[in-house]
């Protein structure tokens, strides 16, 4: 069921926009399910172009060439893109929740109708809400021992896949959740939503890894709500789709809530990966440490946008957005846009951004010890990323993440 309300968008132009093939298909698919308000919105405004601030570096109208037909239930499944030893596995294939094995202690698995994301002025969030038929719900009543892996797939011929997951974490509970996005080698367009609510003093690590085919497009929107004292660590890895955008919407809603929001774009020739964070520090005394890294080679393009919004009463907010880029070729592009929107007066907020190549002196030092050039590069790249993987305490999980990074490094241009 579409969740949006039929609010007429403001008419900024007198002429309707010229629609491209992707927009036409989206409109038809929306009308087919009766999401007329969403269809109207696209008809009037089109997909966001670079003139829309939050899509400045990821011009969807230009980048999204086609939308494949709506996904049908998957008949076959490709091999899992990532195995985490000892993890409790759940699968959603082509938007359909698959039956799972017995849940570990503390976990209640359920289903709900429709999408999970709160309404916001964002086309990917709107589309996820309109197209999501059902959502997987996980209620974590107490601390969960095994890592929870949600394996989200797009299988078969190229398909437009929408799915959504809602996770409630009880007060004082802790959990480690990894979501992987993968599937068959086809020009899928995936639109994934995750809503996560952390109770008081809950401690959660949430990792999302895009390992879709290069032909695919990956969109994900993750919304987080943190109650008093809740601690969230995220690690987003965009490492698969030709076009990817992961949106992070953390909301610090209770005193003492803290977020280590981290992410990584790994892009090669012809890829475009975007991580966009829009964080809200809503109450006094919350902190966050958003740290993003991008590595680009060939003609790859990586984008990181980080917005910190501090509400009027949210005094003593302490938040710093950081993005570090590493260029492995002269043709690569790494773009970064920080934004601070601060309405309180007693806060410590900031942003920083660096971008460079591998340090030549470090390369020479390693090679002077007999380490060949490519191996030295790999060591330095791993070193650059260590800060992101090091805090992941589960050994099997850390090993799996190292595997993804090494796989990318070995993957060549």
């Amino acid at each position: 069921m579409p969740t949006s309300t039929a609010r007429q968008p403001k008419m900024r132009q007198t002429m309707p926009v010229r629609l491209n093939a992707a927009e036409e298909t989206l409109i038809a698919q929306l009308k087919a399910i009766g999401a007329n308000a969403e269809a109207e919105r696209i008809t009037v405004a089109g997909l966001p172009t670079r003139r829309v601030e939050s899509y400045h570096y990821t011009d969807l109208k230009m980048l999204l060439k086609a939308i494949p037909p709506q996904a049908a239930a998957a008949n076959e499944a490709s091999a899992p893109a990532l195995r985490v030893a000892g993890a409790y596995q759940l699968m959603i294939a082509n938007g359909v929740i698959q039956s799972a094995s017995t849940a570990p202690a503390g976990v209640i698995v359920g289903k709900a109708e429709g999408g999970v994301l709160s309404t916001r002025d964002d086309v990917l969030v709107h589309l996820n809400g309109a197209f999501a038929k059902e959502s997987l719900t996980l209620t974590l009543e107490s601390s969960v021992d095994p890592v929870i892996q949600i394996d989200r797939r797009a299988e078969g011929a190229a398909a437009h896949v929408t799915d959504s997951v809602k996770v409630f974490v009880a007060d004082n509970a802790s959990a480690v959740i990894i979501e992987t996005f993968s599937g068959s080698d086809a020009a899928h367009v995936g639109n994934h939503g995750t809503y996560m609510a952390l109770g008081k003093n809950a401690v959660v690590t949430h990792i999302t890894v895009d390992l879709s085919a290069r032909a695919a497009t990956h969109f994900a929107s993750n919304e987080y709500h943190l109650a008093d004292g809740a601690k969230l660590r995220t690690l987003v890895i965009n490492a698969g789709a030709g076009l990817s955008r992961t949106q992070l919407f953390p909301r610090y809603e209770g005193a003492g809530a803290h977020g280590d929001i981290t992410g990584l774009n790994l892009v090669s020739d012809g890829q475009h990966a975007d991580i966009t964070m829009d964080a809200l520090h809503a109450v006094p005394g919350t902190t966050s440490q958003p740290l993003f890294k991008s590595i680009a080679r060939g003609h790859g393009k990586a984008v990181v946008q980080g917005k910190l919004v501090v509400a009027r009463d949210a005094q003593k907010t302490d938040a710093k957005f950081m993005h570090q880029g590493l260029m492995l070729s002269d043709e690569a592009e790494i773009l970064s846009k920080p934004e601070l929107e601060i309405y309180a007066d007693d806060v410590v907020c900031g942003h920083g951004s660096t971008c460079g190549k591998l340090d030549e002196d470090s390369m020479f030092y390693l090679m002077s010890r007999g380490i060949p050039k490519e191996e030295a590069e790999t060591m330095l790249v791993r070193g650059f990323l260590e800060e992101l993987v090091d805090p992941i305490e589960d050994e099997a999980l850390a090993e799996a993440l190292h595997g993804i990074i090494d796989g990318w490094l070995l993957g060549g241009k």
Partner: protein
Amino acid sequence: MTTPILEIRNLHARIEDREILKGVNLTIPAGEVHAVMGRNGSGKSTLSYVLAGKEDYEITEGEVLLDGQDLLAMEPFERASAGLFLAFQYPIEIPGVATMTFLKAAMNAQRKARGEGEMTTPDFMRAVKQAGTELNIDTEMLKRPLNVGFSGGEKKRAEVLQMALLQPKMCILDETDSGLDIDALQVVSKGVNALRSAGRSMLVITHYQRLLNHIVPDVVHVFSDGKIVESGDKDLALQLEAKGYADFDGAAA
């Protein structure tokens, strides 16, 4: 006549438009330790970097043979596997790369280049532990990222540890004594002396005669304005200490 370990013939090198090495000639036979002393900025570190293969320099003339092989034709990592080792004047800090990981990678890379198999982890740990004990290095330190947060003296000791593990034929020590306290100087010198052997040569760059009381050189060279201007036995270092460089290179102090 046996092949010298290192033979430098009329080596000229420049950086951008500036010539820094202006005709270096130096032969170090197997088993000998040669000291090089010279003013700040005379080109000693440049010589060591050029030998190790740093990219920034353009070699305009001359040749260098390592155990008879054309050193300048090799990549930096090939030079290392061929037996050249440079203990850096300023070791590089590399955050994110654990020292142990680095040591293992370096040892295995050199073994692989020589067609030997990888070291097992227990063998590696034993070797590191033993070399570390001799140099008074706490193995806890080696769990940290490479050189990051190491004190000046710790960095120098870590360089000698690498040298001990890699067992090079030709060791170049660029001011390994600077930054060492009196006790550390003794420990490091002992470590270096333990590596002296009939098949291994050393080039020890230093500003202080004191080091040469511990590591007694076979030959001392005075380096000035990009070349060697005087060579002699260990007493030359004493004369330098007493008189300064002016007597040897004619320039004002």
